[in-house]
């Protein structure tokens, strides 16, 4: 019998340990649905401590693809949405899920490629021309294929070339169906061209011999926006704390913190609020 008591004691200890997580979740935190580029590049690690120090509000970031982040926020699972797909963000607000959308910062997309450059696109600025050459050479191209902000931007560019990449998916056009980092790992290993946001690329640790091949086209502009999830639609939303965060990100102090963040001496995001 003593053993039984010991067992149940051990069990209840584990239960108490495990379930205490719910109890410690106070009111002084918000959940931000965001994208992998902001997280993987280290931006949040840089700016969030400054905000938390100032306001006492802890920011919990769920970093997924933009498509999934918007879906999660539309389910009410988050207080703030911080992503990069303007048309989808405006739709989110129009549907009543978000209060209002504000520009926060931008960077740009680049196409990285293997040193051999089989499609001969290195140094080309016109991205539509570069993509057309990749298609003509049937050089491998690794796409996110996950409805993320980067994926949406990439598909918009392919649409401009008039090439139906979905028709050749599995041939030279390869959809990894994963995040940016996983797609870079896969793409570099198969010698494919990959479109990525510059921030993720600079911070990425497994570049191998890859280099930026195509960059500088205005069409590769990558705008980030921030939206408060609508508390009238989702009653759990911590509107006040969420708005405090948004106000701070858009303030001079928040914008300066974003501009301050550098990896290897390079600025990753350029604030452009207001």
């Amino acid at each position, binding site marked *: 019998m003593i053993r039984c008591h010991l067992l149940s004691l051990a069990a209840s200890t584990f239960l108490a340990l495990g379930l205490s997580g719910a109890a410690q979740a106070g009111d002084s935190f918000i959940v931000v649905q965001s994208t992998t580029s902001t997280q993987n590049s280290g931006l949040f690690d840089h700016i969030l401590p400054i905000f938390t120090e100032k306001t006492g509000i802890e920011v*919990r970031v*769920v970093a997924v693809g933009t498509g999934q982040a918007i879906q999660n926020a539309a*389910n009410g699972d988050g207080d703030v949405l911080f992503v990069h797909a303007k048309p989808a963000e405006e739709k989110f607000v129009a549907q009543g899920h978000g209060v209002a959308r504000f520009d926060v910062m931008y960077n740009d997309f680049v196409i990285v490629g293997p040193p051999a450059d089989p499609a001969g696109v290195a140094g080309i600025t016109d991205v539509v021309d570069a993509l057309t050459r990749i298609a003509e050479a049937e050089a491998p191209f690794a796409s996110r294929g996950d409805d993320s902000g980067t994926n949406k931007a990439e598909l918009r560019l392919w649409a401009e070339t008039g090439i139906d990449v979905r028709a050749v998916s599995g041939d030279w056009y390869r959809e990894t169906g994963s995040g940016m*980092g996983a797609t870079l790992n896969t793409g570099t290993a198969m010698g494919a061209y990959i479109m990525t946001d510059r921030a993720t690329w600079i*911070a990425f640790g497994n570049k191998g011999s890859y280099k930026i091949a195509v960059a500088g086209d205005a069409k590769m502009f990558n705008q980030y926006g921030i939206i408060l999830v609508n508390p009238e639609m989702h009653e*759990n939303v911590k509107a006040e704390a969420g708005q405090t965060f948004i106000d701070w990100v858009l303030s001079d102090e928040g914008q300066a913190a974003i501009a301050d963040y550098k990896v290897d001496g390079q600025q990753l995001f350029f604030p452009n609020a207001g």
Partner: protein
Amino acid sequence: MFSLTDILSEALGLILTWDRGLSEIVMLSLRVTLTAVVISCLIGLPLGAVVGAFRFPGRGVLTVLLNALMGLPPVVVGLVVYLMLSASGPLGVLQLLYTPTAMIIAQTILVTPIIAALTKQVVEDLHVEYREQFASLGVGAFDRITALLWDARYSLLTVALAGFGRAVAEVGAVLIVGGNINHVTRVMTTTIALETSKGNLELALALGLLLLAIAVIVNALVMALRASAVRAAYA
């Protein structure tokens, strides 16, 4: 491109420069996994024993179901738990999404069928030996289950370890329902996934080695416990 020595020295570096962030992640991994395994045992051991020891209508179907559920894809479990706990889901009011509790729930769903199905097999085999004795002594249903579980306890430890192995290595479900939030729901497997996506492959592998080492330690502790219990029982 990657040398084993690089990875090993990275792993060693991790252990030598052991910081608060790392112990936070390791402790949360253990807390979530062990809690899920304990709850799974509380459900799965009696359930498996009942299915193993008694004949009743639907037993065959239940057995097939339990065996099949051992192969539940973690991502699917993660999605189902997410939909239940989401603010728009039926259990949204509990506000458990993106907490360790949500991760425990998901892992419990994954591990319980393993515990139940394996317990069923162990108890069924033992019951063959005990059946006549039980009948001649007129032992009641509850006492049969208790006696079978108690006498099979050493084998059932291995069953629990199988469940632990499934839970501690799992990433798909906890990533969805936990959200891999730094300092809140980040565990070893989600950290490994994150570092891989950042291209920090050596660090990811080093963390993998650490996870393996922790699994070895847990298994060794359980086996040592078992050995000393066996010695005590037969001394």
